[in-house]
C-alpha cells in the first residue's frame, strides 16, 4: 500500500479525522523529537516540545501551505519552542548537564565505544554552552545539514546574520574542543594504547 502523502493526511485531519492526524504524528514524531533533543539536550524537555509542536500543528492545520514541505513547518515550530525554552530557563535546563546519548550504532571496540560515548557527551555539553541563537543555527546547519537559506527561513533571520552566528558558534566550539583536548589528550592517548 502506498503511504498517503502529508497533504492527504492533513486534508482528512481538517475534516475532523483524528486517525489521519495520528498517522502524521507517527510519521514525523521521531524527527521532531530528535531535533528538539539536539536543541535542548534533555529527553523530558524534548518530549514536552514534541507534544506542544504537534498541538500547534493541529491548531494551525488550516493555515498549512501545501507548496511548502511539512517538515519545514515543523522545523520552524520546534526551533521556536526550543529557543523559547532555552531563553527562559538558560540556567535551569540541560545547559550545564546535557544528557548523554544512548545509541551507538557503530561499535568497534570497548575502548572506542568509551571514546565515542565520552566525545558525544562532551561535544553535547560544549554545544549547550552556545547562546540559544548560536545553538539553533549550529544545530540546523551543521547537524541537520540544512542550507543557509533554509535556516534563514526557519529562524526568520537574514542569511548574513545566520552566517555571523554560525561563525561565532563554530569558533566557540573549536575553542572548547581545543581546550578540552589540551587537558584530556594524555588520558585519551592512554586509552587508545591499551
Amino acid at each position, binding site marked *: 500500500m502506498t503511504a498517503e502523502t502529508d497533504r492527504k493526511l492533513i486534508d482528512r485531519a481538517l475534516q475532523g479525522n483524528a486517525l489521519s492526524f495520528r498517522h502524521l504524528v507517527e510519521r514525523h*514524531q521521531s524527527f521532531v523529537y530528535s531535533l528538539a533533543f539536539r536543541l535542548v539536550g534533555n529527553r523530558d524537555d524534548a518530549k514536552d516540545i514534541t507534544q506542544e509542536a*504537534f498541538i500547534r500543528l493541529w491548531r494551525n492545520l488550516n493555515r498549512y501551505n501545501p507548496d511548502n514541505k511539512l517538515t519545514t513547518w515543523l522545523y520552524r515550530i520546534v526551533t521556536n519552542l526550543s529557543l523559547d525554552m532555552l531563553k527562559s530557563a538558560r540556567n535551569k535546563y540541560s545547559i550545564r548537564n546535557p544528557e548523554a546519548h544512548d*545509541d551507538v550504532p557503530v561499535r568497534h571496540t570497548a575502548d572506542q565505544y568509551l571514546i565515542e560515548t565520552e566525545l558525544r557527551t562532551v561535544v553535547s555539553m560544549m554545544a549547550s554552552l552556545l547562546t540559544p541563537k548560536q545553538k539553533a543555527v549550529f544545530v540546523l546547519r551543521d547537524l541537520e545539514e540544512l542550507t543557509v537559506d533554509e535556516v534563514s527561513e526557519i529562524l526568520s533571520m537574514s542569511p548574513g546574520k545566520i552566517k555571523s552566528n554560525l561563525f561565532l558558534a*563554530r569558533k566557540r566550539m*573549536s575553542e572548547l574542543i581545543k581546550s578540552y583536548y589540551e587537558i584530556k589528550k594524555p588520558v585519551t592517548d592512554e586509552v587508545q594504547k591499551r
Partner: protein
Amino acid sequence: MKCRNAERAIYLYPELNDRERTVLDNHLAGCASCRAVFDRVQRERNLIFSSLRVREVPDNESDLTDRIMNGVMLDRRTVTTTRHAWPGLIPSLRWSMAVVSVVLVIMFIAEQRVGITQTAEVSVTELDTYAPRLNSTLFLKSLTTAGSEVAVNGPSLKDCIINCTDPSDPACLDCLTYMKKLN
C-alpha cells in the same frame, strides 16, 4: 587576503561561493599558519559531526504518540468549548438573567403591595384611637420603612403604640424615642 580576514572565511568555508573559496585557497597555499588553522577546523568539524550525527530516538514511540494525541484531543475539546460553546452559552445566559430580572421585579412589586396592605391594617383612625399623642403620618412612615413587626425593646411597634396610653410610662417613652429615630 589578509590572515585576519582569513579566519572568518576558514570557519565559514562550506558557505563560501566559488570566488570566495578560490581567494581563500590561494591564501592558504601561501600561509602555513592559516593552513594549520584550516586543517584543525576541518578536523574539529568532522569530530563534531561524527559525535552528534546519531539522532536520539524516543525510548517508547508508541507512548509518545499516545501522549501527543491525548494532548491534541484535550486541546481540541478546550478550543471547541472556547470557540463554540461560549457563543451558545451567552444568549442562554442573557435569557436566564432576563427571567431572573423579571422575577425580581415581580417580587419587588409584590412586596410593595404587601407593605401597603400591612400598613392599611393599622388605619389612621385606629392610630388616633390607640395613640393620640403620636403623629399618624409618622407612624405610617415607620411602618412602611421598618415593616409591621418592628420590635421596640421586646413588644412589637403596634403593641407599643396600642399600650402607650401614658406618655410618662417608660415603655411608651421607648416607643416615642424609636419613632423619633425613624423620623
